[in-house]
């Protein structure tokens, strides 16, 4: 067990709780920077994909995990980011401008879309955002002059100050671009969470009424959360557009929306780590299934693992198991394991036991 002696208020404000923690994350960063030396292009591409999903996951985590607003429509904002970026690029605007602008515009548009539905709670919000996702699909088709309709768009090549970046041509550069955006978003996320705004988010999630009684403007704070969340998701969308190369309305369908939500739940709601863990599951699960399938076919000669849709099926099954047995997700499990070793041999089984609260209706009739 580690005791952290705090000497000033700054000890609670700084990003890393203690020196060893800072050291671990530094080591992780160095590993990420050295990754192109260790992996071939294919696996580097996979890691890039995971990072893009982690960015999108952070976007949704901020909204759902920390502010408590469920969104089943975030694929719409991925799409918005991807299309805005690609359209602006094709107009000859340089990438260093289109990427941040795509994020900011997605944030603003997302907030405007969200404003009328922000008054809604729980299921109503979930359903309204679900509708946004369905509508986005149709609107992309209807806005054919801009979006190319069902034919879709091809993401124009990226050029940063004369440096050509392409997912297939220069996968290492593309990886670094995505890594940079990931770290940037991560920094902003962490900063917000240690500021008054981040506390207001969490307060609103846990008790809206009490947050209001302490001076949190619910509508404004929710709209801000939505804007930041959509902006981050828009950035991820822009990058995903480049990663996919070409995309159309099908790329960002409702299933992707739902998958994003399931992803952060598996990772662990309410922690930034959760966004990364969840993205890893989403990113590596198809590989894992493919490897298992090959293994099963080679050794037992059966072919049943090659059905269509097995990824989503397995993914959903994992999720159900997590919700039932580890509602705090992978991150929650990780914290328990870590605590077990820190406290060894004094860990008690019910240390993290959840308090059950009996449901009382919020309806009057």
């Amino acid at each position, binding site marked *: 067990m580690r005791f952290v002696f705090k000497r000033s208020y*700054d000890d609670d404000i700084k990003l890393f709780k203690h020196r060893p923690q800072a050291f671990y994350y530094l080591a992780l960063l160095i590993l990420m920077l050295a990754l192109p030396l260790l992996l071939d292009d294919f696996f580097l591409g996979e890691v890039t994909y995971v990072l893009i999903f982690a960015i999108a996951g952070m976007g949704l985590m901020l909204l759902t995990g920390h502010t408590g607003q469920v969104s089943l429509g975030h694929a719409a904002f991925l799409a918005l980011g991807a299309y805005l970026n690609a359209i602006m690029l094709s107009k000859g605007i340089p990438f260093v401008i289109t990427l941040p602008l795509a994020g900011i515009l997605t944030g603003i548009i997302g907030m405007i879309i969200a404003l009328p539905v922000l008054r809604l709670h729980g299921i109503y919000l979930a359903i309204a955002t679900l509708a946004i996702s369905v509508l986005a699909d149709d609107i992309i088709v209807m806005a054919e002059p801009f979006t190319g309709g069902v034919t879709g768009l091809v993401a124009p090549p990226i050029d940063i100050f004369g440096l050509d970046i392409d997912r297939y041509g220069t996968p290492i550069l593309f990886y670094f671009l995505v890594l940079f955006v990931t770290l940037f978003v991560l920094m*902003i996320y962490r900063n917000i969470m240690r*500021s*008054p705004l981040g506390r207001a988010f*969490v307060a609103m999630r846990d008790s809206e009424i009490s947050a209001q009684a*302490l*001076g*949190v403007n619910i509508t404004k704070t929710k709209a801000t959360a939505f804007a930041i969340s959509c902006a981050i998701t828009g950035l991820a969308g822009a990058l995903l557009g480049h990663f996919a190369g070409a995309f159309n309305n099908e790329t960002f369908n409702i299933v992707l929306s739902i998958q994003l939500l399931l992803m952060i739940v598996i990772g662990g709601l309410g922690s930034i780590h959760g966004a990364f863990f969840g993205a890893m599951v989403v990113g590596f699960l198809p590989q894992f299934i493919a490897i298992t399938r090959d293994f099963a076919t080679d050794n037992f000669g059966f072919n049943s693992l090659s059905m269509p849709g097995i990824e989503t099926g397995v993914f959903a099954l994992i999720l159900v198991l997590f919700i039932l047995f580890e509602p705090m997700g992978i991150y929650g499990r990780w914290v328990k394991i870590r605590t077990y070793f820190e406290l060894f041999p004094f860990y008690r089984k019910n240390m993290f036991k959840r308090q059950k609260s009996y449901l009382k209706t919020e309806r009057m009739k």
Partner: protein
Amino acid sequence: MSLLSLENVTLSFGGLIAVNNVSFHVGEGEVFSLVGPNGAGKSTVFNLISRFYDPQKGNIKVNGESILRLRPDQVPSLGIARTFQNIELFEQSTVLQNLLIGRQRHRKSNLLSEMFFAPSVREEERRHRHVVEEVIDFLELQAYRDKYIAGLPYGIRKVVELARALATEPKLLLLDEPASGLSLEETNDMIYWIEDIKKQMNITVLMVEHDMNLVASVSDRVLALADGKELAIGTPQEVQSHPDVIKAYLGTGGEINV
């Protein structure tokens, strides 16, 4: 001039009149208690002052100005803080974080500076922390500073909620049943704290409470309500011996033993 005044306030839900033509004034520096049987409309009065409900008739004034045009989240900026009958803390946060949310009305930083955690934000955080630490010292919560609410016993939660209200640096504190569910010792602590809040911090207190011992020890004035109507107002002794109050509590013809 009175700090808070209700003037002929009426609120009904459907056919049920929860608050019926109630008027009272709370002067600066006073401890004012609302008593009455369950369903008398005491908590509804609090929710009216918090702007969770709109009165159908009458007016609510703070420092002589009507607050009826304010949103609930604008009420704290008048220097009004409250606690809740059923404890509404932020369960997934630590005690420290809960108290820091009490500083929300003093937030000066904007989104951009917070995104990059500008030096001004850091400076502000230190100031908030300083205020919060003073409250922690006052209510002796040092041992629980980094504990999560979800794991705390009931009595401590009650204190944390009081602390969170104090962290807003209020002028008027609304306490909704501060002693309900507390042990005798915890209630005695509460009595001392409320006295200190009044005397040392110069905070006006409006309180709803059932524990007549607590009410009698700290209140300057008491208002008894029943079925949304005013029964009696005066010192604790006057109200306790008022025949209408006795009737409301015990039906007709009983003796009151407090």
